């Protein structure tokens, strides 16, 4: 679709219909007309541009597939816009029907262009180079001289020289037609075909692939199955039996942050020290998982995509019995790991207990914002908790987030002054509820790692397609398509009149470079030094195009003896 020289191959519609009265097109005619419209370069160009425009909202509106949290925030902030955005699929632009319509039409247009052009290219490659035009000096780049060598010998050496320059050569009685640069169109077709391959590879990944994220606290682990994942997305043809049965334990999560300077608190190093087995019976092996350094198990990749803190709490109810004890992941909300979370003690009697609040690795009290963290690592770890008693709502059958407390059927615990009970806890400290309703003790802190497990069977085909597309692209842009003709005729006086001419068939090609080639060819055939291979003036001087438009008119003022 790039080459101007093949415009005459275009299936573009002819402007204006045949003369005569307009009549309705028959279905077959209409289908043919539509097909020609769709596969025309103009339509392809419009669709390509439309695809670019259609991608823009996908970067400006939060996307479900990229950042669901921000989508929820956006919906909460813009209740009026939300239904319209939803109607237009603006929260998932790249899987929207209208987006798919654009790229599918583009690819159909592509196929409709590539197939006939491949056929034409195939026959063009097997055809003989075009015979020399009658008047070679009419061509924009040409040279001629009179030689002492016989015409047959001269043409023989011209054939050798052109072959050496990778031309396909066809010899006639007194002339040679030569052509090079077929790789340009080959590359062009390869590029566009590889793009189709890329689309297929993406489709394979979407159909058979899966991606899940799982949060693992230090000292804990999981085995690969659907139920362990906190979020899981998979293609339509995915089956759980495809999941390799590996297990992963998080031994330790180490983190390092910039301790000082204007980037204080910026992450510097995250490492999850894992022990894993490729199947439950295998011997465990260890691996240090880092960002940019995934673990590969049986074609499935495990990535470290996040980390945070899981403070350890012990909750006792009114009877003094420990009804909950263990680490609870709190999700980081900012760059300094101010984290929020909840603790649910469903076994507490007589009423269930719930706590919500903050975990601050380096606690400080901001006059405006209240308790916040001022550094992401553990320097002054504190937990700040509110307490609720009542029914946690876990038995209602409605699935509940482990990071949110449903306080509909709970009452907040207040202190003697009637204010909500809240307390900043250092490790080892406990919050005691009034009237002996129970207590929560902040025992210590463990870290957690968020791991992403991904399997995409389309990714290798996608890479191969992309690289082939790149190769094709370079060929289609950098290979020069040229035709060269040589004619040698005996002048009857024992000398041979030689004419060499060239024609560039490449968009944007500098005629000077073709002139260089024709000059070099002429020299190698014994042309005298003075013979210039073009009507162009010598190199340091340029004729302004307005004064002498490049119409390819032969140079009358040049002496060519």
């Amino acid at each position: 679709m790039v080459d101007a020289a093949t415009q005459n191959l275009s299936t573009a519609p002819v402007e204006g219909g045949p003369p005569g009265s307009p009549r309705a097109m028959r279905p077959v005619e209409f289908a043919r007309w539509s097909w020609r419209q769709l596969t025309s370069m103009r339509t392809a160009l419009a669709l390509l541009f439309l695809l670019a425009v259609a991608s823009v909202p996908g970067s400006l509106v939060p996307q479900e597939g990229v950042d669901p949290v921000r989508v929820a925030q956006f919906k909460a902030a813009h209740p009026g816009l939300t239904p319209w955005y939803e109607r237009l699929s603006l929260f998932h632009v790249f899987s929207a029907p209208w987006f798919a319509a654009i790229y599918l039409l583009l690819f159909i247009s592509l196929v409709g262009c590539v197939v006939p052009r491949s056929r034409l290219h195939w026959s063009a490659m097997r055809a003989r180079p075009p015979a020399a035009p009658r008047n070679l000096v009419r061509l924009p780049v040409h040279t001629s001289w009179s030689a002492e060598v016989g015409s047959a010998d001269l043409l023989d050496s011209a054939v050798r020289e052109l072959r050496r320059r990778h031309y396909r050569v066809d010899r006639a009685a007194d002339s040679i037609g030569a052509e090079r640069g077929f790789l340009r169109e080959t590359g062009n077709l390869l590029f566009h075909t590889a793009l189709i391959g890329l689309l297929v590879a993406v489709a394979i990944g979407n159909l058979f692939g899966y991606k899940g994220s799982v949060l693992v606290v230090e000292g804990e682990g999981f085995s690969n199955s659907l139920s362990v994942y906190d979020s899981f997305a998979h293609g339509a043809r995915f089956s759980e039996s495809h999941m390799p049965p590996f297990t992963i334990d998080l031994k330790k999560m180490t983190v390092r942050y910039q301790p000082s300077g204007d980037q204080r608190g910026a992450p510097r190093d995250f490492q999850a020290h894992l022990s894993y087995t490729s199947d439950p019976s295998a011997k465990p092996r260890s691996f240090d998982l880092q960002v940019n350094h995934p673990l590969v198990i049986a074609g499935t990749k495990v990535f470290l995509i996040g980390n945070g803190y899981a403070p350890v709490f012990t909750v006792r109810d009114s009877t003094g019995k420990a009804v909950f004890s263990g680490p609870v992941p709190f999700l980081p909300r900012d760059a300094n790991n101010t984290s929020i979370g909840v603790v649910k003690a469903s076994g507490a009697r007589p009423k269930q207990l719930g706590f919500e609040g903050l975990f601050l690795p380096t606690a400080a009290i901001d006059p405006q914002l209240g308790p916040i963290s001022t550094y992401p690592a553990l320097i002054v770890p504190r937990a700040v908790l509110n307490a609720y008693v009542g029914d946690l709502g876990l038995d209602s059958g409605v699935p509940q987030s482990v990071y949110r407390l449903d306080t509909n059927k709970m009452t907040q615990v207040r202190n003697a002054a009637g204010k909500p009970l809240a307390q900043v806890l250092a490790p080892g400290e406990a919050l005691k509820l009034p009237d002996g309703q129970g207590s929560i003790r902040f025992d210590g802190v463990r870290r957690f790692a968020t791991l992403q497990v991904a399997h995409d069977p389309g990714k290798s085909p996608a890479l191969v397609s992309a690289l082939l597309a790149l190769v094709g692209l370079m060929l289609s842009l950098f290979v020069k398509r040229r035709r060269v003709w040589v004619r040698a005729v005996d002048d009857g006086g024992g000398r041979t009149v030689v004419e060499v001419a060239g024609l560039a068939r490449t968009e944007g090609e500098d005629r000077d470079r073709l002139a260089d080639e024709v000059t070099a060819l002429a020299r190698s055939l014994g042309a005298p030094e003075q013979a210039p291979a073009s009507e162009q003036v010598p190199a340091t001087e340029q004729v302004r195009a307005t004064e002498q438009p490049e119409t390819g008119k032969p140079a009358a003022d040049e002496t060519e003896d």
Partner: protein
Amino acid sequence: MTSESLAHLSNNLLYSAMAVYTGAMYCYAAELAFAPRVRAGRVLATVGATASPSVDPAVSGDAPPTPADAESREQARLERSNRLGRIAVALTGLAFLLHFGAVVARGVSAGRPPWGNMFEFSTTGALAVTGAFLVLLARRDNRMPVRYLGLFVIGPVLLTLGLAVSVLYVNSEQLVPALKSVWLVIHVTAAMIAAGILTIGFAQTICFLVQDRMERTGGGPAFMSHFPSADAIDRAAYRMHAFAFPIWTFAVIAGAIWAENAWGRYWGWDPKETWAFITWLVYACYLHARATAGWRGRKAAYLALLGYSTFLFNYLVVNIFLVGLHSYAGVG
């Protein structure tokens, strides 16, 4: 040398480079300003030709006869203009060396490739622009003059550096874990080289549009008559874009490979990825438009400008204002 003193040296070199760039820019501007107007019908050397050509009366034979003293005055003006141009190129070379030194010192000071945040990306990216321009100048191909572009290339370079030192500056530090990868070198280098070449293509496209207008309406400032013909600029701009496009494609593919290795998916429609894709599409449109009747010339040129503005959007707006995985700007 300690890391801090190296970072300090880097900053000093950068400020020196900016001073020399400023001098170069003034010289490019003066070269254009002092160049005499080329009269219609006159065959004349183009401003920016490397050699110092003379206005040969024999060549300009069909020019209207002018008094000899006016001729020689004009000749003197042309000589002076050319001298300014050569000084400008020399200053550009000097500024490039200082700039290069600044980038290297920054990299050594941090012990890593010097493009880990937006300040560094901007300074190194600007270096790529100057580098691409110097490569073109060094080709010494008189048939494709490039010196006339000096003002339009060094201007944006200086603007970028000014933005970098004033708004984007951050101290030299280690990388965030997400950037610790060999792909930082491969992906970002390709993106910067492509950007450098596209910037020159952008400058050429602007010159083409102005020259094209001059040629259709006549008149215009004197210096424009020294630019190559609109057609020649257009072809040069096309070649620049055609050269940059596969490099940009490679940068996007390398980015996808890196994304697969870091985040578990090769394409996730992160804002940065989306805009790299948009830029790719718009430049693909440009290349196709060149081969489509009715779109060649000005319409295609507008597409090239649009392509460059999508690149700028990705560099400035997406880095700073849009939330995404590529938020390494270190700004704000």
